[in-house]
């Protein structure tokens, strides 16, 4: 079952597709983030990252995922978090997974420490991102409580626009 099918099923079970949206919740260090399930292609174990020249630190290079080179996006570095020493070459110590995101003809491998799982959130429970850091609000325009965790709901378009490498002439 694909993530798209799982997302659809999550909505259909509740019979209220307009009021529920399904997200993939994951962690980068202690920060909980979520991306729309419809934009998730797959989750894989993190593999070695091959560095490419002149890229910003939050894009440490490309990784081969199913035989194709995907740009690796380290949101933790972009946010400025310090997650320790590198274990996988090119990645931080607790970078265990790639969440492969596909949106607007772009595919990237987002580094995650832990994948929590798919979560259907009631649209009414999604709040303005008032408790998120200023930098996080550049990519997340909603927040939601899940247990003790505050989850930042990332807008995929904002994420790709804000983190896409652009050379400086």
């Amino acid at each position, binding site marked *: 079952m694909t993530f798209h099918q799982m997302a659809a099923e999550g909505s259909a079970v509740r019979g209220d597709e307009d009021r529920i949206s399904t997200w993939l919740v994951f962690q980068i260090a202690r920060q909980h983030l979520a991306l729309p399930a419809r934009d998730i292609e797959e989750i894989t174990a993190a593999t070695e990252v*091959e*560095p*490419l*020249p*002149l*890229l*910003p*630190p939050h*894009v440490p*290079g*490309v990784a*081969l995922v199913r*035989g*194709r*080179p*995907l*740009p690796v*996006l380290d949101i933790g570095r972009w946010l400025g978090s310090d997650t320790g020493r590198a274990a996988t070459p090119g990645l931080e110590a607790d970078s265990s997974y790639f969440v492969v995101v596909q949106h607007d*003809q*772009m*595919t*990237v491998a987002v580094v995650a420490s832990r994948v929590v799982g798919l979560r259907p959130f009631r649209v009414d429970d999604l709040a303005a991102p008032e408790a998120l850091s200023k930098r996080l609000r550049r990519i997340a325009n909603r927040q939601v409580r899940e247990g003790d965790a505050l989850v930042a709901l990332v807008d995929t378009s904002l994420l*790709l626009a804000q983190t*896409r*490498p*652009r*050379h*400086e*002439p």
Partner: protein
Amino acid sequence: MSEVSRRRLVWLHFQGGCLALDADDVVAFAADEQPGEGGSLAARFGFGQESMPRYLRLRGERLVAAHAAVEIVELARSDIWTLPTFLDAAWPAGWVRHLARHGEGIAPVIAPTVVDGEPPRAHPP
């Protein structure tokens, strides 16, 4: 992301990474020429200098220093990819044509025009 045709490449091993050039874009190798306006590929791409300079005369009478171990490789179609869309603005327009895999490494396949004009500023570490 589609594959492109099989081709021969000049693979440059720098300290900290690799670059590749289409073999048809490299007119000649030289060991004792002076660098032209193109200067150094290592400096342009922020690499360390792996070795004494070798000079590459590129298509369009461009002379550039490589400071790299040089290898001629022929790659299968499956080892050459178009540039991922997310990265297509990461370098000046036209500098990087493809990505290629050789051995353990992946390198940008660069165009001779990389030696023209001012190099981009490297991102801070």
